[in-house]
């Protein structure tokens, strides 16, 4: 079973993502509305990959990733950013933050699970 944590402040997009992951019987997905909420979940539930919206209030995606890297329990978690129309420079910046990659938003719900699987060994 592949465990996925999807973090986005937009409730409708979280719902779409969870519905999309539910199409894949080998994926168990949870969601969080903020970076802080994600850190709370990760304290008791470790996924195989974390998907982070870039722009979120309070603690944004890059800030959440930095917090993950500072915690030995989550330091090695693969993280993928979800962002609209990512520029080349922005993608390079994400790579420097040790992100595995970027999924463009709006994403295709029918292929989201497949895109996520491609980031895993």
């Amino acid at each position: 079973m592949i465990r996925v944590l999807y973090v986005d402040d937009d409730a409708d997009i979280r719902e779409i993502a969870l519905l999309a992951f539910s199409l894949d019987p080998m994926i168990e997905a949870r969601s969080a509305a903020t970076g802080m909420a994600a850190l709370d979940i990760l304290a008791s539930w470790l996924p195989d990959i974390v998907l982070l919206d870039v722009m979120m209030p309070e603690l944004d995606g890059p800030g959440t990733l930095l917090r993950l890297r500072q915690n030995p329990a989550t330091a090695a978690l693969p993280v993928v950013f979800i962002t609209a129309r990512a520029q080349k420079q922005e993608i390079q910046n994400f790579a420097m933050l040790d992100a595995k990659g970027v999924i463009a938003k709006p994403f295709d719900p029918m292929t989201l699970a497949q895109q996520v699987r491609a980031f895993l060994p």
Partner: protein
Amino acid sequence: MSADEPWLDGLRQKFLARLAEEHAAFCALSEAADREGIIARAHKLAGIAGMLGAPQIGEAALLLEETARSGDAYAAPCAALIDALAAATNTTPR
């Protein structure tokens, strides 16, 4: 497009039903020259519209967000988004 998937019907109907509210909100934000409010609302709309069968609204919202965030004058892309929302609202079964 994926938004044709039956399992997205409920969300799509909910989204279409709130387009009139989005139209009114952008009119008010534009009138108030609320750049930060426009950036925040356009960001949310850009994220969801393309997934639920309204790519033209998503593109217009993304252009508005990027323009307003850059500090440039955003009146034209804001007007374009408001027009797109008005058109979608007028053609959406109520």
